[in-house]
């Protein structure tokens, strides 16, 4: 019944579009992961020298050790950042999957249901990309949700009564994801990881943009305008700007790299 209500035509179109339009993006992500793997191999090779330097105890050993420790700490931070990112994605997938099963979503606005389905797939792809990078870096993959925001979701779920509540919760998660990855771009040590975080942050920002517009339309009684294609002529003026509230994406609510790290 829910499946019948889902806009399958739109979803099928989106899947085909996705396969075409994502080919370059997927290639870029693969490139980024490949470059990251090469960097990790170089780091591992350098780390291999450190015991020899320590055993030798010769001139410069302290310097080599210091540099090696700094490099290891940097690599560790990169892995933690990836694990935290994966944990945020895991939580998003879980929340959207739960939302898709709610009666008022299953029988509600078809475009909202299609958005949830598509966004779940996109977050799944992000989680896979982050975990693939973790594996290449020699870290432990993160399959658990972000603990801080899992608690937020847990306390919010019983209060969800309608689509607007789901949208509000989703906005929080998308914003945290976008802010975290935006900040990670300048915090990770590896250019390939900058590319990876930098290619995901705008997509989360776009999810938030759509959700902000949906939130405004729901609040304004314009649910019928949440459609693809919409009737642009009927959109209220404020709907044209509600989806992008800041000139610069903030990072003040970004999750610290350790928040979702595997203990």
């Amino acid at each position, binding site marked *: 019944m829910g499946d019948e209500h889902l806009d399958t035509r739109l979803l099928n179109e989106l899947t085909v579009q996705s396969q075409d339009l994502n080919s370059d993006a997927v290639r870029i992500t693969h490139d980024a992961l490949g470059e990251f793997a090469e960097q990790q191999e170089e780091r591992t090779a350098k780390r291999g020298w450190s015991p020899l330097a320590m055993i030798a105890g010769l001139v410069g050993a302290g310097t080599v050790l210091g540099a090696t420790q700094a490099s290891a700490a940097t690599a560790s931070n990169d892995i933690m950042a990836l694990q935290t990112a994966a944990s945020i994605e895991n939580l998003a997938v879980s929340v959207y999957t739960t939302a898709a099963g709610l009666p008022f979503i299953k029988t509600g606005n078809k475009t909202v249901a299609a958005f949830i389905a598509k966004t779940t797939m996109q977050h799944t792809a992000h989680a896979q990309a982050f975990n693939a990078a973790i594996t290449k870096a020699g870290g432990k993959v993160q399959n658990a949700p972000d603990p801080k925001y899992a608690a937020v979701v847990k306390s919010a779920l019983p209060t969800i009564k309608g689509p607007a509540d789901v949208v509000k919760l989703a906005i929080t998660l998308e914003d945290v994801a976008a802010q975290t990855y935006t900040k990670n771009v300048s915090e990770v040590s590896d250019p390939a990881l900058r590319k990876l975080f930098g290619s995901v942050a705008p997509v989360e920002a776009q999810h938030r943009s759509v959700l902000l517009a949906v939130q405004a339309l729901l609040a304004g009684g314009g649910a019928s305008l949440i459609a693809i294609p919409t009737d642009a*002529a009927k959109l209220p003026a404020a709907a044209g700007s509600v989806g992008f*509230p800041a000139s610069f994406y903030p990072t003040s609510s970004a999750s610290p790299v350790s928040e979702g790290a595997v203990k």
Partner: protein
Amino acid sequence: MNGRKQWELQVSEAELSSMTRDLDEAHRETIPTMYAKAGEFAEQIAEQNGTPRSLARRRFLLGAGAAGAALALAACGSGGSTNTGSAPASTGGSSAAPASKYTGDFKVVALATALENQAIAAYTAALSAASAGKLGAVPPAVGTFAKTAMAQHADHAKAWNAVLSSAGKPTISGVPLSGQPAVQQALGSVKTVGDVAKLALQLENQAAQTYLFAEFNVASPGGISTAASIAPVEAMHAAVLQFVLGQYPVPDNFLATDMAANPSQLTV
């Protein structure tokens, strides 16, 4: 306006505008942080060029004010011009200079400024055409979108120009890009809001992707973080435009770089 009569808001437009205002206040709160980052960037790249950080900081603060004046010129949208410091005299033009004034990270900053100016000029021209009735009926939401997006591009250009002036580099007040004549030609032939939205979508996607490219090609940490904070905003503009055009607003799982502008497109 007819559309408004057909659809009655359960909350008033004023209340909806209030929601927007709250978000706008949040936006204003991000600007000081971003200018701090851009200032830091200015100091970093100036230091790489042998300029003392304190001097670069002073120049940045002065440049942030002067950049506002440069933006007014950007709205004219033609050719490309550079301003030496805060002086109004311009040099260069759309023809390729024998040797670029911008190298390394500065070249990416100059490219970013030119792209922002290009967007400002495009939205200015579109709004002008709309006011003249050349685009037919313009939905109120599209008008609000164009004005807000244009203001955000102006904030971006101002930040980048302040970085240039702080390093003693000429600011960019026009659109010194080899592709600008084609954009102007396309703008001249638009007949509908949809035509404008398609062109704007191309510019927004190009900007977002160029910033992604910059994130892993710029050396300065300040430049990386500034580019990282702008790319999502350009992508959000693109999402709204996709929606207005009747397309799915978030088509890609990952942002690509195939549409990114190449620094070689800079003509100054």
